[in-house]
């Protein structure tokens, strides 16, 4: 980063880090979580997550052994829970990158306490997401044919297919997110290495820390690379859900074939992603005593974003109806009436209730700042957004030719894969919480008032900014 002075008036009055923290206490507080033996709560949660992972293992194993027939798919609904779950998890993933990258670019310093969390969530969510297109194909063992690998058949993939775009988009997204996360972790891994008590930890953290010691010449390249990664991630995060939306939008199916999908999907992704961050962060800050880092202000900010994106999603729902009518396409307009009042009306109204109606409660500051309510409402959004993808996918059940209409009923294995994917997610997430710093230590330090060389605590430096009351205003 250049040394330009950021004169921007701060928007958020409460402090980013509460309590009388020094650099060392921050290091201590965050690293303690990793260094202490696992708590009972963690062990209990981890066993639960492992159980879910087991459900996934059995479901996927049976699926691959037996065939896609164990799911409730049929003709015309060839995509069911698998693709719903895929889009759901990809959507969840978005908030991570968004919090990290876009808030970073916008110099929203409040992101530092939650970005590590959110990025980890992104990676694990994308892992869950990648699982579904993988296992949903009829012949899993041939999935590599979708990659442009020279082969003895001389065949190449079809670059016209949105599924192929997906392959590129999601794998790029996963790779870049992983790099972004890892680059962010390097200084913290070095911190853990330098605090390591055991040889194993020393070498393990040391290996991944790459020998980071905090040299400024390193910091210079590092910050540039990080900035660029953030800059790349920002369009990437927008492109990924855009391309995922192409899976639907590029088809000819009424209810899918619509130009509103890219922005609508992106808004929905941010919406669901922030909700998932809250779902994870609210219990985590309590369990790991990180209230001083993930403050009420953080939660409130995220609630505001949920309110805004929720309204964007609501606008998209309304606009879909308007366009369906305005287009003059009978098939299209009928599909939307069928969504709201057809056989899957219940899914539609669950979606609207959870995504548009309940988030309106965030107009009230009391609710925004109430942890319990925020947690409950975030779960509502998760449910609503899962149903949004379900509602969209179920456009298939009644398309053009009435004779081919049918109804999709998920089986126990559909639910097994859905529940199991949460098991996978939480297993990875709990491992992350246990073995890696859940909050970006160096970044939190960087936004502390005393990290600023012009901080009035260093008045002897004689800077030209005058003095400010500590803890009230910040440069940034």
């Amino acid at each position, binding site marked *: 980063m250049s*040394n330009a002075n950021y004169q921007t008036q701060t928007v958020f009055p409460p402090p980013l880090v509460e309590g009388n923290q020094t650099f060392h206490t921050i*290091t201590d507080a965050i690293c303690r979580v990793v260094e202490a033996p696992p708590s009972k709560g963690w062990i209990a949660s981890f066993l639960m997550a492992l159980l879910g992972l087991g459900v996934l293992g059995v479901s996927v194993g049976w699926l691959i052994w037996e065939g896609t027939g164990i799911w409730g798919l049929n003709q015309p609904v060839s995509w069911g829970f698998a693709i719903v779950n895929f889009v759901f998890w990809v959507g969840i993933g978005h908030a991570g990158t968004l919090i990290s990258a876009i808030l970073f670019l916008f110099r929203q310093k409040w992101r530092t306490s939650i970005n590590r969390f959110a990025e980890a969530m992104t990676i694990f969510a994308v892992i869950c997401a990648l699982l579904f297109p993988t296992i949903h194909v009829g012949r899993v063992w041939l999935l590599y044919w979708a990659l442009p690998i020279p082969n003895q058949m001389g065949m*190449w993939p079809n670059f016209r297919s949105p599924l192929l775009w997906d392959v590129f988009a999601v794998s*790029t997204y996963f790779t870049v997110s992983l790099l972004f996360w890892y680059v962010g972790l390097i200084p913290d891994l070095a*911190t853990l290495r330098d605090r390591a008590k055991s040889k194993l930890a020393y070498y393990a953290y040391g290996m991944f820390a790459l*020998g980071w010691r905090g040299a400024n010449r390193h910091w210079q390249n590092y910050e540039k690379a990080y900035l660029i990664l953030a800059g*790349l991630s920002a369009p990437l995060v927008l492109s990924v859900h855009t391309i995922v939306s192409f899976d639907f939008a590029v088809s000819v199916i009424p209810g899918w074939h619509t130009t509103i999908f890219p922005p609508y999907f992106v808004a929905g992704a941010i919406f669901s992603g922030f909700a998932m961050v809250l779902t994870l962060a609210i219990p985590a800050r309590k369990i790991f005593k990180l209230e001083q880092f993930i403050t009420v202000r953080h939660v409130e900010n995220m609630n505001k974003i949920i309110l805004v994106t929720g309204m964007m999603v609501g606008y998209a729902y309304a606009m879909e109806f308007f366009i369906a009518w305005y287009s003059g396409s009978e098939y299209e307009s009928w599909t939307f009436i069928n969504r709201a009042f057809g056989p899957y009306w219940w899914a539609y109204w669950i979606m609207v209730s959870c995504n548009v109606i309940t988030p309106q409660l965030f107009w009230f500051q009391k609710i925004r700042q109430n942890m319990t309510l925020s947690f409950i409402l975030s779960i509502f959004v998760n449910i609503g957004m899962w149903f949004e993808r379900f509602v969209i996918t179920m456009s298939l059940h009644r398309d053009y030719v009435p004779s081919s209409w049918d109804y999709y009923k998920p089986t126990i294995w559909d639910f097994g894969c859905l529940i199991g994917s949460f098991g996978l997610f939480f297993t990875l997430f709990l491992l992350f919480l246990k073995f890696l710093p859940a909050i970006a230590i160096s970044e939190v330090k960087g936004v502390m008032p005393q990290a600023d060389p012009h901080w009035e605590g260093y008045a002897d430096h004689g800077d030209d900014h005058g003095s400010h009351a500590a803890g009230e205003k910040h440069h940034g």
Partner: protein
Amino acid sequence: MAEARVWGLVAEFENPAKLLHAAEGLRDAGYKRYEVWSPFPVHGMDNAMGLSRSKVPWFVLGGGLTGMTCALLLQWWSGAVEYPVMIGGKPLFAFEFATPVTFEASVLLSAFGAVFSMIGLNRLPNPYHPLDKVAMFRRSTDDGFFISIETRDGKFDLHRSRELLESLGGRHVTVVEE
């Protein structure tokens, strides 16, 4: 064991402000091979040290262009030259449908450019550094702010450099062996 050669000097500073000030002092004193160590990047340090701009963006540009070119070539060559197949009444190659993959490939290789050039330019991974032997230096990833000067610097002089560091507010000035 042979007598260890001196690698340089290291001094600790109290806070980022002093660190920044000291770095400016060393820059003004004409030092080149000195380094500033901090647990987080300190604003204005690059200027204070008089560093030139990072080269990372060039690698990113290179990666991005490579990704874009390869993706376009791949899509055109595999679809229109190597294995042309009639698909859905659409042309064998068109920029419209090539756009998403091209974009993603560009981003991917740009990201690779950013990360790997950062690692490369920083000469990482680097498992050993003489400063590791200085106990206090461990705090460079916690709450310690350090400046080291290498003997290889043309202006290095064990005595004068130490004095300079101390005059700039450096504490615990230590001689580091190689």
